[in-house]
């Protein structure tokens, strides 16, 4: 039948008349096929866990056999041993993190976290590269994360840091150690809340912050950072309000913000992550109206005056799409992406940027490389739990 003009109504009607399509496979057979696939998945994961201690043992045996042959050069031995021992320590740390990720997946909480551990080669890659990682995806039951934050030298940006501590004490007990952790890492002058004590009440979504008597805000830059630091420290626990308690009778004076008794904490701020002093990933905040494409573009700009370096090199270009809670990046640049420290930093900075925009996973498409560090480029990658980890 030919028509001069098709009308929407007719097309709708035809669509509604399309034939029904039914599955001819019986329910029981379908269930068997699904069950088989589900059980086929499991042994592979158990094998992966066993491979890690085997690899560690092999490294140890290799070192023990190599050291005597190097005995002619004492300095060389000393240097090598120090380096190798450091690597072994790192290997052990990464082992703990990986096993915990796998057990998390088993519990069914995060199926995608372990998705990028799909091959043995990648796990070997994990062991070599995780020490360079600026993020943490999860910690085991024997560890907790103490979220903290310091200011940069010029009081412009918040540097989030995540202390990974043994899970011996309660969260509030861990926060009592925060002054010590900061001193040990040489952060004293950048940590604005030295001498403060914290009482987190997760059930009320509230944190009480007792500030020391000598607490003062010396500049408007510090005052602006005050709120951002509290937000960075406590929003990961789902805290929505900070109650500020001063030892004196007066409310806290935040200079330009004025005197306040409490602060509302937002879930997260939109930001582009850049590298501070070549060491820490730092969120550079955005306006609310910015979108993720703007954020990815912004990551290509360094801010030398503030020691912030771009995290996406000039030669790398992406087109950006999003599907629900997944961010999809399509590589459109001409240069070949290689597995370098710079690439790992880029991936992790993008993951953190995506997280700040509310995405849960990021998929890198058309990258021309199967894996960068322990990130599988063929699977969606879960956004991290924490940034700038420091293992205590």
């Amino acid at each position, binding site marked *: 039948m030919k028509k001069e003009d*098709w009308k929407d109504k007719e097309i709708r009607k035809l669509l509604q008349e399309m034939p029904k399509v039914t599955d001819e496979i019986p329910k029981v057979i379908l269930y068997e096929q699904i069950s088989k696939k589900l059980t086929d998945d499991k042994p592979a994961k158990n094998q992966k866990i066993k491979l890690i201690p085997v690899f560690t043992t092999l490294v140890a045996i290799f070192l023990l056999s190599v050291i005597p042959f190097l005995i002619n050069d004492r300095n060389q031995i000393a240097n090598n041993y120090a380096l190798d021992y450091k690597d072994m320590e790192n290997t052990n740390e990464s082992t703990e993190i990986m096993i915990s990720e796998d057990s998390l997946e088993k519990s069914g909480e995060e199926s995608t976290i372990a998705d990028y551990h799909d091959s043995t080669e990648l796990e070997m890659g994990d062991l070599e590269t995780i020490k360079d990682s600026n993020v943490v995806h999860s910690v085991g039951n024997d560890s907790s994360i103490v979220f903290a934050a310091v200011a940069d030298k010029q009081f412009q940006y918040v540097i989030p840091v995540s202390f990974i501590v043994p899970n011996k004490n309660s969260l509030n007990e861990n926060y009592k150690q925060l002054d010590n952790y900061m001193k040990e890492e040489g952060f004293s002058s950048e940590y604005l809340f030295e001498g403060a004590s914290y009482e987190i009440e997760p059930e009320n979504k509230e944190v009480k912050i007792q500030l020391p008597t000598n607490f003062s805000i010396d500049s408007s830059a510090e005052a602006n950072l005050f709120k951002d630091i509290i937000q960075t420290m406590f929003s990961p626990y789902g805290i929505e309000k900070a109650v500020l308690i001063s030892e004196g009778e007066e409310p806290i004076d935040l200079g330009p913000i004025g005197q306040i008794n409490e602060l509302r904490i937002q879930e997260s701020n939109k930001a582009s992550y850049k590298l501070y002093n070549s060491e820490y990933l730092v969120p550079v905040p955005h306006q609310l109206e910015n979108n993720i494409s703007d954020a990815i573009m912004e990551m290509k700009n360094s801010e030398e005056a503030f020691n912030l370096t771009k995290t996406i090199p000039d030669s790398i270009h992406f087109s950006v799409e999003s599907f629900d809670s997944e961010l999809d990046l399509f590589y459109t640049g001409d240069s070949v992406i290689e597995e370098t420290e710079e690439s790992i930093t880029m991936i992790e900075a993008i993951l953190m940027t995506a997280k700040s925009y509310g995405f849960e996973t990021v998929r890198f498409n058309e990258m021309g490389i199967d894996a960068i560090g322990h990130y599988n480029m063929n699977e969606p990658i879960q956004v991290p739990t924490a940034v700038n980890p420091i293992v205590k």
Partner: protein
Amino acid sequence: MEPVFDQFYEKYHQDLFQFVFYMVKDREVTEDLVQEIYIKVLKSYSSFKGESSEKTWLFSIARHVTFDYFRSQKRKRNRIMDFFDWGEKGESIPDQNAKPEELAIQSDELRRIYQLLDKCTVDQKSVLILRFIQSFSVQETAKILNFSVSKVKTTQHRGLKALRKHLDEMDQKGTEK
């Protein structure tokens, strides 16, 4: 049998199968994707928070799995084209997985609509299938595709317009012959 599987199968299986089939138009691929969808459902049901209905949750998983399939096909096609470097000719390489139509449709008009669905974008095709073949409401479609209600309406309008344009073109060619 896992109660979660049983529950979803009884309530939605044939609808789910039909949706995936119309999206990919290949029975074998549909069977594989449907299995993958159930595996995801079984793995993540414990984290289903009930913020959406079970139905829209299931179909949003189906949408993800189907879109992933399209992306993997696109990557495969790009690799083949890169390999041969056929330039403009590469654009006309037929889909490597193209198969004879698996759905026997008697009516000429319906068969044309079925073919022309592939001329729409994936978003338009998803909206048209959900809205008219599956008879989902605008709200349900919005939740499944994570669109706003107005975006569903706009995409639906554009999808119908694309079909109309191609139907008119086909008619035009027919008349010229």
